[in-house]
């Protein structure tokens, strides 16, 4: 269980994290999604005691991270796979963690095995590792204490497709066993395939959050008809939004039934009617974060109904 409430971090005039609140629950994978520079890493650094908050609190298992007596036994952390001494062997890096945590020596080989690093690879120096191997070593360091909570910053960086699949299965299994997983990413697809709950952050603020299913539902419906103009008019006449997409469909905030009825009562034959998931969430993500992104052109788009106004975005 991770509870972040009203967390704010300022560096001089810059507010990197602005009143962020959310909860990551046991048994679920919580995806922390946002473009680069949105405040994800700063939030995770405060959560793990590497940085101090300007105000607000961040707690793991009901305590400040720094107050955990032996944090590695309760919380597995991987913030940056590159942040490992290049001159140590992979095994030695893990031995340091094993000894710090006071674990049996046998745990080192077991954990190396678990993350798929061979004994031969473990004898090499970390400086010679690929980013993917460093990620595996970082995950090993996080897992060796058999924690109940995992906090990972961009864990899929540098992994090949098989590695990403492996990471996904590992995190899924961890959550299914009752663990809490919080992972950040700037890639929607990555979060979408694994997360149960999603917290979207942009410009230091949480701009949307909730169970993935609800976020997808909130995105609306995609309707296609031969006569796009008539369909748009029909939806708008029914009091719903209607925005044509590039490929001749119409996105609306109506649910499936509402969109179908509106088209039917206007006598517009519908050729396709489905939840606007996938593409929709991506558009939501881009839209939600657009005002904070470098590439932002337009105005701030309407935020979904799940935009948090109070604490506990992932309620």
């Amino acid at each position, binding site marked *: 269980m991770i509870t972040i409430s009203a967390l704010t971090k300022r560096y001089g005039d810059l507010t990197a994290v602005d009143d962020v609140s959310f909860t990551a629950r046991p048994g679920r994978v919580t995806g922390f999604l946002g473009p680069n520079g949105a405040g994800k890493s700063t939030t995770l*650094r405060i959560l*793990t005691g590497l940085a101090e908050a300007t105000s607000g609190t961040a707690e793991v298992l009901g305590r400040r991270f720094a107050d955990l007596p*032996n*944090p590695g036994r309760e919380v597995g952390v991987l913030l940056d796979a590159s942040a490992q*001494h290049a001159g140590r062997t992979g095994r*030695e890096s893990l031995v340091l963690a094993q000894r710090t945590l006071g674990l049996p020596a046998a745990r080192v080989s077991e954990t190396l095995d678990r993350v798929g690093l061979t004994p031969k690879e473990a004898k090499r120096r970390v400086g010679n590792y690929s980013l993917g191997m460093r990620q595996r070593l970082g995950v090993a360091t996080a897992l060796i204490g058999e924690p109940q909570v995992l906090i990972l910053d961009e864990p899929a960086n540098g992994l090949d497709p098989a590695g990403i699949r492996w990471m996904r299965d590992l995190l899924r299994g961890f959550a299914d066993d009752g663990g809490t997983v919080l992972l950040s990413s700037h890639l929607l697809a990555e979060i979408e395939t694994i997360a149960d709950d999603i917290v979207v952050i942009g410009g230091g603020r949480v701009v949307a959050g909730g169970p993935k299913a609800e976020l997808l539902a909130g995105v609306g419906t995609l309707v296609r008809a031969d006569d796009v103009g008539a369909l748009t008019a029909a939806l708008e006449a029914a009091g719903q939004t209607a925005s044509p997409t590039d490929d001749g469909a119409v996105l609306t905030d109506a649910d499936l039934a509402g969109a179908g009825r509106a088209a039917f009562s206007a006598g517009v034959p519908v050729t396709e009617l489905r939840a606007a998931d996938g593409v929709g969430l991506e558009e939501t993500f881009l839209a939600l974060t657009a005002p904070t992104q470098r590439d932002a052109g337009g105005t701030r788009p309407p935020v979904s109904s799940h935009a948090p106004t109070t604490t506990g975005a992932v309620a």
Partner: protein
Amino acid sequence: MSTPDRTAQIPFRRLVDVELRKLADTRSALWLLVSIALIAVGAVAVLVLFAPFQATYADLANAVAYPLGLLVPMVGLLSITSEWSQRGALTTFTLVPRRGRVIAAKAACVAGLTVVATALTFGLAACGALLSAAAEGTAAVWNLSWADHLYLFTFQAIGVAVGFTLGAILRRSSVALVGYLMFALVVPSLSSQLALGVEWWGAAAPWLDLTHAQYALLGATVTGEQWTQLGITAALWIAVPFALGLWQLRRVEIR
């Protein structure tokens, strides 16, 4: 070894054990230690083989103490800075968020290393004195008192404390090493140059210049005034900066 309780505090000895490993678990760290030992052996060998006189125990101890006094502090300095330069701090301080404990464990290891280095100094000097005497066909000259041994250890300990302090303040290997060499080599010579020309500095230097006060320990006797000077300069250049460095190190954001 059984797995201890999940929520038991990490005992200090375990932190010391880990920090001790870190002093020698990379190639560069290991080679630094090996080179220090080789240089110590070399210093004795040169004096025994090539000195045109019989090398006494004191001659040899001093010959080893100078290079070690310069090099051992670097180990202390690097024990802190390598965490930042190699970014291991991220892992170290998420496993042990109470940073002061990690620094204390490092200090304990470096203190132990200083004891070992001093013991090595005396051990090698004793071997050298016996060899030199054997070569000359005379008796070895044991010309260091117990107090002298203690002074020489204090001399080494002050140097190591300077290195450790610079590491805690600067936290970057390159910057801290340059700072250390400035402090250990450049500043003392500038200070003595200045003392020759500027009268008031000549009078003030012993009270402000740590290296000056430190070298008094290698003299024939150490007066009460020299002890006072050593205490003042050590407070000025070690205790106060270290306290500030530690205060900052415990708060700084680790990236």
